[in-house]
């Protein structure tokens, strides 16, 4: 897929995010907008997947796990746009009886979701387990996991970070959505993450960095990581992103982490995002 095509999908995903969160007056738009380009590139270009025939076991295809489950609007929009379930179902986000729960779950059987997430710090471990299952099965596909940067404060992340290189789990590509903000404010103020790159490198990861909102850079980096899998070590991509990307008044602040726009704000946001695939 061309960079322009991917960018057009990302624009529609961003519209979906705004409309979903506005529709139910609830959800997490900031991080969703920031991580859109990365996950769009994964699902529409870089991952080998069979979205028309979703299989829980993920055997014979690449697998993706969303560890920071609160950015579910982005995840749901991309799954729907990729064909996992009807796009019109996005209108049910966070409403009673929906398969699109506030945080991703498996209980309602939404195609594309393999495990619940939301309570932070668990996704990297799940991905390591799934990657080891692929090794046991002789399945030469990759496992991807997206984590938040605030989530790096969870101790369990570092249990998994220690385990994966020690056991040579090299079919794993972990991505940190490094927007440097969390609910209470800048990560530097809440709990400074320090030199995240040096920390992962010290644990034995091959670390890449990319501009996570530059589609060309995202595609190039993911492609590079794919090509460098199976070299004995897991890979970590520090994705420098901007929370709220694509909507000017949602950028440069943590205030849109978990707040919904009102009618006027939503209209303003949508005026900044081209409708490329048709709204749901």
């Amino acid at each position, binding site marked *: 897929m061309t960079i322009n095509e991917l960018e057009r999908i990302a624009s529609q995903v961003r519209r979906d995010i705004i409309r979903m969160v506005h529709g139910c007056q609830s959800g997490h738009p900031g991080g969703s907008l920031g991580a859109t380009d990365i996950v769009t590139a994964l699902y529409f270009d870089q991952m080998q997947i069979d979205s028309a025939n979703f299989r829980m*076991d*993920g055997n014979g295809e690449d697998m993706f796990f969303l560890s920071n489950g609160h950015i579910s609007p982005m995840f749901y929009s991309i799954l729907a746009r990729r064909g996992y379930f009807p796009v019109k179902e996005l209108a049910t986000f966070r409403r009673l009886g929906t398969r699109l729960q506030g945080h991703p779950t*498996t*209980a309602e059987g939404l195609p594309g979701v393999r495990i619940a997430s939301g309570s932070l710090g668990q996704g990297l471990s799940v991905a390591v*387990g*799934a990657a*080891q299952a692929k090794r046991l099965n002789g399945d030469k596909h990759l496992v991807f996991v997206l984590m938040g940067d605030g989530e790096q404060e969870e101790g*369990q992340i570092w249990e*998994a970070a220690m*385990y994966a290189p020690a056991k040579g789990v090299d079919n794993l590509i972990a991505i940190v959505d490094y927007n440097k903000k969390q609910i209470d404010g800048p990560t530097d103020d809440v709990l400074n993450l320090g030199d995240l790159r040096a920390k992962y490198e010290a644990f034995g990861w091959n670390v890449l960095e990319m501009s996570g909102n530059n589609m060309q850079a995202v595609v190039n980096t993911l492609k590079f990581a794919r090509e460098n899998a199976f070299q004995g070590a897991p890979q970590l991509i520090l994705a420098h992103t901007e929370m709220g990307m694509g909507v000017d008044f949602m950028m440069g602040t943590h205030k849109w982490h978990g707040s919904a726009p009102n009618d006027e704000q939503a209209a303003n946001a949508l005026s900044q995002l081209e409708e490329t695939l048709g709204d749901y």
Partner: protein
Amino acid sequence: MDFTIQNNKDTRSGFGEGLLEAGRRNPKVVAFCADLTGSLKMGDFAKEFPERFFQTGIAEANMINMAAGMALSGFVPFTGTFAAFSTGRVYDQIRQSVAYSNKNVKIAASHAGVTLGEDGATHQILEDIGLMKMLPNMTVIVPCDFNQTKNATIAAAEYDGPVYLRFGRPKVPNFTPVDEKFVIGKAQMLQEGTDVTIFACGHLVWKAVQALPILKEMGINAELINIHTIKPLDVEAVLKSVKKTRCVVTAEEHQRNGGLGDSIAQVLATNMPCPMEMVAVNDVFGQSGTPDELLKAYHLDTPDIVEAVKKVVGRKQ
């Protein structure tokens, strides 16, 4: 039931043998252990199936979630550590990624209860049955001896869904039949009787067996049922027995709050209210000591079951 003691063995060794057998029967069975391979008796499995054994180091949270991730692809992962670190330490991981996500993970929990002994209360978890049974989708199994633990482990591997399998450290009388098929959710009738029903689980089953002849001498004809599956509870068996005996004693190596007695009381209160006594730990932590000393100190021994039966039979009349 024949109560002849075949030998004295620890239930954790039953798990070790059961895991090995499950691994031989099904190549999808894998095992994780958080630096307690010897204590959990997982060494034979690790030796025979090195590629299917994952040493996680002392990182229980990571272990639970890796098991969930591996279960996705059709594997049947067992996780092994002490009961204390299999439950409280990783409750959120189990809740979100195993129970809520309904993954086929078997949580094998050893050294449960006060019979862990000298290590003291930090390791003697008495709340784990409650923690696990509260989770939707979770099956909770507490076998009573070596043979039953082995057979329960094999049954857990064949069952599709999350299982909490609780067993212990000390050698205890091994009396249930070798290779008896373990049916999850099916209470085990050990002795039929008419005057009182004793529902027991785990190590307390043998303590209750020992109470039977003492009660007989006293003229009390007790029924003894082994509730090896706390959840799903065999409600039919419970009600059928109590309809006949009209009074109940429960016995378990666990807190009253959240344990077997609590589950039985719920069924009886809503279906068939009757006098009931609970032999269990009553809202205190354990301490160091030998297993036998601790069972006596916390009133979890045969004389305590006998006293409870006398009391409840008296309340009935």
